[in-house]
């Protein structure tokens, strides 16, 4: 078990900056999720921790040891890949055994450890099969078993669930989280799926364009976003971001008028989550653009001026389009961002 420290990590590819000056402390036994859109540098960061890529600048410390010059195969790190990366010519048993053989673990221990790892991911009866004879979910579980079998200091998981269908993803998510708690291994998990990030993480690191946008627990990230990027990335559907003008304690935009703190003024962006919008009120005056019942909740889109505002309405809410409607915003959950997209906070 080990903590991981990234100190001023920079990764450049020629003129392109993949990761810019990233510093991060990952605690022992922590489940940390790197979240961001594709190309944001999250996978590059993980590959540098694995030793598959070298940082251009900065230090990587795993378990108190600087590992910059240590080859991937000598770092005690196990990785799970998006495409499973099972060795197609070997049976599942041999796949799980491969890291044990490579690391010189005595052959007498192999069988017991392989069976234990396979049991953990409920794959005990598939050990004789080749990867090609397994379903996507089974392959991913085999890849997990191969990662856990050698009891590494660190788990790295690179979008391990993104090739699976939605239902399977949910059950695998729970399985991964359970396993991580059980084994207490420091885990870094890369995803672009904010639901995965919210459900799995002890802490989330949100990245964009190679830079960290915010680090925090899922609750912090959700209820206290640092900028418009984080606000718009987290939440499903994401937070409504409305550009307008604040003056004398009131924010206005076409069709929208809400009170705001006096220190908010000028061209600002208002952020309000769909679940903090309620049918009936006068903060937003607009027309119904669309109604999407999902069973447990109904999503309502309201056209106010040129803005389309998402509202989470009651499950039985129904309406025709183009009907005039008024929406109230919960005044306790309004977020204001300045022109550069940074959150405007009370103390400022």
């Amino acid at each position: 078990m080990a903590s991981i420290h990234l100190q001023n990590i920079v990764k450049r590819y020629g003129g392109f900056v993949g990761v810019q000056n990233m510093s991060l402390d990952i605690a022992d036994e922590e489940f940390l999720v790197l979240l961001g859109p594709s190309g944001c540098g999250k996978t590059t960061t993980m590959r540098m921790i694995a030793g598959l890529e070298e940082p251009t600048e900065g230090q990587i410390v795993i378990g108190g040891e600087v590992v910059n010059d240590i080859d991937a195969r000598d770092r005690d790190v196990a990785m799970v890949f998006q495409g499973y990366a099972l060795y197609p010519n070997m049976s599942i048993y041999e796949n799980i055994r491969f890291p044990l053989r490579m690391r010189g673990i005595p052959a007498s221990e192999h069988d017991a450890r392989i069976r234990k790892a396979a049991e953990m991911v409920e794959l005990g009866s598939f050990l004789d099969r080749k990867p090609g004879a397994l379903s996507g979910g089974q392959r991913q579980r085999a890849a997990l078993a191969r990662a856990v079998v050698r009891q590494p200091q660190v788990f790295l998981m690179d979008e391990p669930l993104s090739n699976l269908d939605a239902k399977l993803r949910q059950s695998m998510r729970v399985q991964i989280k359970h396993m991580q708690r059980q084994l207490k291994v420091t885990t870094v998990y890369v995803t672009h799926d904010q639901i995965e990030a919210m459900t799995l993480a002890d802490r989330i690191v949100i990245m964009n364009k190679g830079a960290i946008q915010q680090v925090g627990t899922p609750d912090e990230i959700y209820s206290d976003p640092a900028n418009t990027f984080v606000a718009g990335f987290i939440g499903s559907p994401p937070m409504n971001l409305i550009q307008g003008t604040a003056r004398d304690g009131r924010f206005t935009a076409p069709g929208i008028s809400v009170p705001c703190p006096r220190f908010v003024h000028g061209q600002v962006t208002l952020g309000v989550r769909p679940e903090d919008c309620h049918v009936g009120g006068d903060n937003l005056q607009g027309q119904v653009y669309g109604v999407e019942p999902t069973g447990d909740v109904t999503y309502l889109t309201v056209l106010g001026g040129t803005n389309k505002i998402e509202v989470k309405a009651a499950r039985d809410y129904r309406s025709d389009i183009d009907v005039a409607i008024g929406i109230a915003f919960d005044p306790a959950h309004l977020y204001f961002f300045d022109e550069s997209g940074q959150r405007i906070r009370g103390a400022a």
Partner: protein
Amino acid sequence: MATARKSRGESRILRYLILGTWALVCLLPILWFLSIGFRPRTEVITPEPIYWPTFSLDAWRLLLSDWPIAKYLLNSVLAVGGSVVISLILGIPAAYALSRYEFRWREDIGFYILSTRMMAPAIVAVPIFFLFRSMGLLDTIWALMLIYAAVNLSLVIWIIRSYMLDIPKELEDAARTDGASDLRILWEIIIPACLPGIITAAVIAAIFAINEFLFTLLIASTANAYTMSVALANFTGGSDGIIYNAIALVSFIAFVPILILVILIQKHLSRGLTMGAVKG
């Protein structure tokens, strides 16, 4: 329904008819030289076509009595087999390096290797002769192995390299984090994963080698190193003139090992020849 089934049946008959005719067209040269091989010499060249030639084992007897045909066949098999082994031992690591490692002039080196194939072999024939003479390898199987391997190496490298490029890099990354060294990765992951490509390359190299004529003629001067392809030429000269029925029979004997090879590995070969194309 009934008419649909009938027309489907008819189209099937038509399809077999077309395919059967085409197969016959393809097989005709083989049947033709087989029939020449088993007829007397007097019936080989005649002004009128002979539809039912006399069956004769003259050519067989000639081959077995006057020519060490088994020795030629053995030479061919040894030289070709040895050359394929040499080209794979050199070609697989080269293909791996060219497909995976980032280094300066990688593309240029790859192109240079391929360019050795673009030159007419006759240009280097004389230097090669002197080279092998100075090494004392003239008229030996070893020389044939080396020269066949040299001629085919570029092809082998390029075929295998294209397969290796298709192997997901994730597999190697996984093996590396699992603790495997580069050589282990090559041996346990890469080679098994591109086996169809390796087999394809080996078969193509074997076919080229078995048909190689110029360098063999240059290097071999006795039955020590004569292969089937050069032995054929022996039936065209001398006081007996051109012995067509013997040539036909030797051609057939030379053709059989390749046929057997291709049938044995047909599954891998067709997979190998199409796999790269589909993945694009």
